[in-house]
Every structure is written in structure tokens, then in C-alpha cells.
């Protein structure tokens, strides 16, 4: 038994990588993940990755912002210290629109991005978990868990048939730790 943990198919072209995914899937080889220097449209459907639920988070945070913004205005202007400004009503709804809107947008944006960072474990100083250093440059990587898929020769052949320029057998999951 070799010590290979992950097999990486390294492609120079995104379409060839997509072809590689098709060939692997046709042979019931499970794909761990793909790493690409740019977003690849349609890859989620192929790999069975569920649609992101971030829009729901964005909507909830926006709703929260709407309520907080309006509550702030209602509390300060109408409840805590209603001011008589030229005899105008103490709850002038049209005047509440701009600030409520801005708070809604602010919370929606910050909440959604915070959720994105939290779910993807992105934060300043996080050690990058990179399997191939060229995946952020010019290579499109298919990573296959070598222990779950025993027939390494078949994988190698399939990747090369699809046009992989290089097939790597990594004994460590991440190459970015030194």
C-alpha cells in the first residue's frame, strides 16, 4: 500500500478538466474537490454541489437591518425624545426612508459577507490549505482521495486521456505548509 493520500490531475485547460470529471464519474471514481484559478460555470451541477444558501442569509440580514434601522429611528425620534421641529409630526415616515434603507443595505452586506467567510473558514491569517500551488495561477486541478479509490492506474489513465498535463501523487494533503 502506497502512502499516496491524494491524486491530483493537473489540467491546463478548463474544458479538458470538465472532460476529466466526466470520465472519472463514468467510472464511479469519486472526486474530492476541484481547485481552479477562476470560477468554472456548470461545475457545481456536475459535481453535485448544492446551490449556495447565501441569498437566504443575505435576505435575513437585510430584514434584520430593516427592523433595526426603523427601530432606531422610531426609538430616538418618536419614543425617547420626540422633538417639535416646526410643528411637524414626530414620526415622519418619508424622512425615515433614507436611514432605514442605508442600515438595511449595510447589515445585508456585512452579514452576508461574514456568513461567507465563516462558512468557508476565511479569515486574516488562516493558513492556506492549498493542494497545488499552481491552482491559483494557470492549472485546473481535480483532487481524488487515493484511499477511497483504489485503482490508481485507472485514474491515471483517465486523467491523461482527458488531457491532464501532469498527474501528481501527493503524500500530504496540503502542500502549502512548510
Amino acid at each position, binding site marked *: 500500500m502506497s502512502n499516496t493520500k491524494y491524486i491530483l490531475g493537473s489540467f491546463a*485547460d*478548463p*474544458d479538458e478538466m*470538465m472532460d476529466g470529471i466526466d470520465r472519472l464519474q463514468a467510472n464511479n471514481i469519486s472526486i474530492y*474537490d*476541484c*481547485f*481552479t*484559478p*477562476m*470560477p*468554472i*460555470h*456548470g461545475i*457545481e451541477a456536475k459535481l453535485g*454541489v448544492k446551490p*449556495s444558501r*447565501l*441569498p437566504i442569509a*443575505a435576505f435575513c440580514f*437585510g430584514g434584520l437591518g430593516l427592523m433595526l434601522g426603523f427601530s432606531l429611528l422610531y426609538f*430616538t*425620534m418618536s419614543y*425617547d425624545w420626540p*422633538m417639535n*421641529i416646526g410643528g411637524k409630526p414626530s414620526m415622519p415616515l418619508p*424622512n*425615515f426612508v*433614507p*436611514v432605514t*434603507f*442605508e*442600515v438595511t*443595505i*449595510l447589515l*445585508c*452586506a*456585512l452579514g*452576508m*459577507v461574514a456568513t*461567507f467567510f465563516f462558512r*468557508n*473558514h*476565511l*479569515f*486574516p*491569517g*488562516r*493558513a*492556506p*490549505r*492549498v*493542494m497545488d*500551488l*499552481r*491552482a*491559483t*495561477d*494557470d492549472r485546473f486541478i481535480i483532487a481524488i482521495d487515493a484511499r477511497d479509490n483504489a485503482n490508481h492506474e485507472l485514474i491515471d489513465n483517465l486523467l491523461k486521456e482527458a488531457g491532464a498535463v501532469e498527474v501528481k501523487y501527493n503524500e500530504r494533503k496540503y502542500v*502549502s505548509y512548510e
Partner: protein
Amino acid sequence: MSSHNESILREPLMTGKGITYAQVTDDILLPVENKPNKAWWIGFIVAVCGAMLWVISVGYTFWTGIGAWGLNKTVGWAWDITDFVWWVGIGHAGTLISAVLLIFRQNWRNSINRSAEAMTIFAVICAATYVVAHMGRPWLAYWIFPLPNQFGSLWVNFNSPLVWDAFAISTYFTVSLVFWYCGLLPDIASVRDRAHGLRKKIYSVLSFGWNGSVKSWQRFEIVSLILAGISTPLVLSVHTIVSMDFATSVIPGWHTTIFPPYFVAGAIFSGFAMVQTLLLILRKVMNFEHYITMFHIEAMNKIIMVTGSIVGVAYLTELFIAWYSGSEYEMYAFANRIAGPYAWAYWAMMTCNVISPQLFWFKKIRTSIPISWILSIIVNIGMWFERFVIIVTSLHRDYLPSSWAMFYPTWVDVGIFVGSIGLFFTLFLLFLRFLPGIAIAEVKLLLKSSSLQHKTKLVQEGAFPEDQVEFFRNSLEKYDSVTEEEINALRKK
């Protein structure tokens, strides 16, 4: 699919021969990974001198108070608010390019969005300094926010557009910064994975651990789209609220309902002009000619022309409504603009903003780099005068003729304005030195769909009818980055 064959009738968004994904990374990271050249240093030193002038002028203002400016009892707002509105307006183009063009799926935004967004952020920083400086006692600037306080729980007046403005500008700055930085993550990761030693450590911290997995890209795209969706109404609201600073007052010439749309159009107009000013130099100095092509320049000139025309119509509408209103004060305010002591400023505005963008109807002018550059600067001068005319000419003729006055700037006014341009360029040049000036990942998307080499390959394979290829060949003639040889290659099979 990562690549789709778009119509040959569309002009290429990327030129050059034999471009690979690796070369895109190399080209764009060249200024980041190498020591800056002489042009950068000269620009940077000049900009830092400007920024120093800004520090001195603002420091002097804080020390002596806003009496250091040329304001008087009648003209209480002048250069400070003019410069503020000018900078905020300039900032708007970045959001427009990154958000509105994303929603409309205009792929040409991919090559210019990063630097335009950076421009937005630096312009808003410049604008925000005026807001703080013109308060007079900047150490009390936080009073604009509704903080629990010891003054008998007296809250800020949320009926005031100035308070809305504080909320709008700070929200706009925050959301723009977040949008810009999220987009930068994959590109910082590209720098990180090519770097060594301390450099690698720094970019590693900045990259937040980005790795480009399927799920991260999926979420990245959703986040970009939603941020674009919410930034679009946000950017419109910001300049609407800026215009309400004037429009909700009872000063003749300010109290008009046309202000919000007219200010927004003006903001886009001046912002695109500033993007044009910067990018024309950037593409030359940084050798980005293959990424920021003639198509981009022409498209931006068209937007300048359209928004310039909207602004022109707004000026004429204002005049008409001033007459149609029958209000003596309103009519006087505009007659005074046209023929009063500041008529030179009014006509400078009219010439720069209404007449000069009309020159872009001519394709020769639209596709000429030197003329585009000069016109973009003229537009920015014109837009500065627009705000000056609106603010100073409306104020200097008070209701009481005994209070009539003129405004003369002091060296501090001039110093803060010139200095803020220095500050802006200092930040922009630092950005170009340390971060990728073009969104690498997004430009890579264009390589197999909209690049000239891809289209040439398809043409040579005979994928398109000859009349369409002919149209495409003709459209390439304006490109300065496409050689005769490359056009001829389209004839071969």
C-alpha cells in the same frame, strides 16, 4: 462551461497572440512582483508632495478653525462642499462598473473593475475628509451619529439630510470596501502562491486562506452578485441624498426636484471621466494594452457622452423651470448664474460638460487616446465648476442685498483641494504597487470566450459566415494593440 463561443460580431475584450492563463497572471502581477519603475517613482513623489500639502492645509484648518478658509457670512459653503461632492461623484463610477455592469453581464467590466473600485474607495476617503474638516471641530465629528450621550439623551435630528448623508457615505464606503476586498481575495492568493519568505507570509494573511475550491468559487460568485444587486440602489441613494443636502433647503437654485437624477447622472459622468483619465495612463505605463483595449476606451467614452447629454438636458430643464415657475427669486438665481459675476464659471461648466462630450459622437475622436484623455480631464474640470456654480452662485446673492458678497478662496482652500488630489494619487499608486491592478481571475474568464486569439482560431476553423468575419475584421481597425498581421490572419483558413 468555462468557455462559450460568443458571436463573432462582438469585438474582442482581450488582444495579443499566444496568451495563456500563466501569461495573464505574469502580465498583471509584473508591477506587483517587481521593483517599481521610474515612472511610478516620479508619480509617487509628486503625489506624496501633494499629500503633504493636504496634511499641512488640513492641519492648519484644524488648528485655526474654518476661518482659515475664504468663507464669509453670506457664502458659508464653498470649496469644501464643492470638493466633497466632486469626489463623491467621482467615486460613483467604480461602483457603477463593478455592480451595474455585473448585473447587466457586461463582460468588459472584468478588465477595469478592480482599479475603478479602488478609485471609488480612495475618492470616498478624500470626500470624507471634507465632511470632517468642514465641521470646524472635527474631534466632535462623532456627534453626527446617534450615540447614547450625556446631553439629556438628545438624539440627532433624523429629519436632516446631513444626517442621512453621514449614514449614506459611511454605508457606501463600507460596502464598497467589502465588495472590493472580496473580489481581491483570489488575486491576493495568486500573489501568495508565487511568493516566498516574508512576502508570502504577508500575502497569506491578506488572502484569508483562499484556495479556489468549487464551493468557495460558488459562494464567491453569489456574494459578488448580491453585493452588486444591493450596491446599485445604494450608489443611487448616496448621490440622491447628497443632492438633498441642497434640494431640501429653501435657497433659490437649490430647491428643485430635478436634483437627485441630475446629480446621479453627473456623478456617473465625472466618475467615468476620472476612470478614463487613470486607465489611459495605467494601460500605457503598466503595459496593459492587451487587457484594457480600445473597446473599453470607446465604451467608456460612449457612457461619458450619454451621461453628459443627460446632464446637459438637466441644465436646460433647470433654466426652463426657473422661468416657468414664475418665481422671481428662482429666475434671478439663474439669470445671475448666466450673466452675474460668476458667469465665467457658469460658461466654463456649460462648455466643459455640455459641449465637449458631444465631440464623442465622432468615432475618430472616441477612439483617439490623446483626445479622450484631454476630454476626460476637461469633463472633470467642468464637473468641479458645476458644483461650484450650484453652491457659490446660489449663496452669494442673499435675500438681503446688503448681505451680497463674493467668495475668494485662501491658500488653505486651494491647498486642501490640490492636496486631496495628491492624497488620491498616493493611495492609487500604492494600490498599483502592492495589489493586482486588474482582476486576474475575471480576466482569465475572457481568455476562452472573448479574446482575439480565441476568435481568430474559430474563424480559421470556419465557424462563422464570411460577411460576419468581414464585419469583425473592420471593427478591429480601431484597436491600437492589434497588428495588421493579426487582422490578416483572420483571412486564412
